[in-house]
């Protein structure tokens, strides 16, 4: 492979700077560490934060998986994979369990992660209090003083307006009993997967120039009220039309011809693996 770029696109100094900030982020769970977000060959807001983390971490031995809202084959995921592959030559996989680094946009895979894997999440707005307080100067003070009434107030407003907490994604979490953190726009369904996770979770916001982290085996609690407890989205009584899985995050689709509502796994590689397993079983039988 003839590459004009350094290994993993960045020069070694840049990678070291990002790794140093990542270490700081891991040392202070949930704290947003400012970093010098680099210019990238993709636009800011298209996953540059996650990509910079991935590029700073990746080594020749690594196996990479990139997903975009559960899909391994969406444009964004494919392009990021191509870029990393062209500048490093590492192996790419769709199988969650084979990967050592998983970069994801807005989902945590259905297959439980292990302690030798790193999950990198792309973050558009890292500040959980942004809607409540527009000024960065003020939100830094609020974090410093552990003053999070704003985060609960936003949930209270939802309950007042709609009768329940309506965060579709990015439901704020308390990390290690100290910092309130935006878990990136993952569905509420995935929030509990962050709690005591075996894998290291890194979150990067390229446009907002912040990295933060949830180290392995860290307590992550979704914010709620005593009389309005946190709840995941439920898909009770529904299952994937392809593989039949039920305890997973399902996409609601409308069949173009019959106009019926159907459900399908959001995590495409999980669905495929399950189908293959079933097929293998059938063959053996």
């Amino acid at each position, binding site marked *: 492979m003839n590459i004009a770029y350094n290994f993993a696109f960045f020069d070694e100094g840049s990678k070291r700077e990002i790794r140093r900030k990542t270490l700081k982020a891991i040392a202070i769970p949930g704290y947003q560490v400012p970093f010098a977000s680099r210019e990238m060959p993709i636009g800011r807001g298209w996953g540059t934060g996650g990509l910079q983390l991935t590029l700073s971490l990746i080594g020749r031995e690594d196996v990479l998986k990139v997903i975009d809202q559960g899909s391994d084959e969406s444009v964004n995921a494919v392009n990021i994979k191509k870029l990393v592959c062209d500048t490093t030559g590492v192996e790419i996989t769709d199988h969650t369990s084979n990967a050592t680094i998983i970069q994801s946009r807005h989902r945590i895979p259905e297959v439980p992660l292990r302690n030798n894997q790193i999950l990198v999440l792309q973050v558009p707005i890292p500040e959980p209090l942004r809607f409540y307080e527009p000024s960065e100067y003020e939100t830094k*003070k609020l974090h410093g003083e552990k*003053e999070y*009434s*704003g985060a609960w*107030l936003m949930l209270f*407003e939802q309950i*007042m307006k709609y009768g329940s907490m309506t965060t579709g994604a990015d439901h704020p979490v308390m990390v290690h009993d100290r910092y309130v953190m935006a878990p990136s726009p993952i569905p509420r369904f995935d929030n509990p997967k962050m709690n005591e996770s075996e894998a290291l979770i890194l979150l990067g916001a390229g446009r907002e120039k912040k990295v933060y982290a949830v180290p392995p085996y860290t307590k992550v609690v979704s914010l709620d009220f*005593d*009389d309005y407890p946190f709840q995941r989205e439920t898909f009770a009584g529904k299952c994937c039309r392809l593989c039949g899985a039920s305890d997973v995050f399902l996409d609601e689709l409308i069949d173009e011809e019959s106009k019926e509502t159907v459900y399908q796994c959001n995590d495409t590689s999980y669905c495929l693996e399950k189908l293959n397993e079933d097929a293998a079983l059938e063959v053996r039988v």
Partner: protein
Amino acid sequence: MNGLEEPVLSVRNLNKQFGPGCPYCQQTQSTKMIKNYCQVCGTVYACKDVSFEVYPGEVLGIVGESGSGKSTLMQCLYFDQDVTRGEAYISTYQNGERNLFQESAQAKRYIRNHMMGKVYQNPMLGLRMNFSSIGNIAEKLIAAGNRQVGMMEERGTELLNKVNIPVHRRKEAPKNFSGGMQQRVQIAKALSNHPPLLLLDEVTTGLDLSVQASVLDLIKSLQRELGISIVLVSHDLGVIRMLADRTLVMLEGKVIEQGLTDQILEDPQAKYTQQLVHSLL
């Protein structure tokens, strides 16, 4: 009042200056000063050695012309601004033994959320205009550690009732409300966690006369009912006459006269106070 009564709030030698100060303006009898402004270094002395006490259930009025340091004093008391020098003690915090101005930012926030309520002249400062009215009240309750939606909704509704905001508008944002209604939401918010001390900064300025009267009526009845202490800043002597038991007169950052409100209005001693009282229409 018996001699043993403990003040709710006592303030000693509160000083607030904007600017570094210089050898010219730090002398006691400086010739370089225009009122409380130093011509040499541009420092403004907003509050100079202000000391006073507020007793339980008392309404203390503070009057003075604009620029006399009234609002700065209030902002210092609510920790919106840091003081330059001075001490303040509140009886419900650490038995009134700790100087509030030297506490950490967290402790100041705690005091603000648990022991004080403030109503600003400008509702934009005291309310979150885009959040619902009931959410605004809940904000203070959440800050004080409450995590029960049902209880907060009940308390918010009760308070909004008390300040005559119709129940069906409780989920509306204050930006849709008239000035008088916004002011009443602010009062409800300030009262949400039963503070022993309420700070009112020019609450009726800019409201029309009938709304002024209803807001004043409300404050008076709430004060009677709940027995809270109030520090009330106004340049309107009518408001002071109606509400305040005791009054301080401020001029150029200093307290020039203090006493019972009737005494001050009927028999003013200082030249400025005489002028002020006589200019009352």
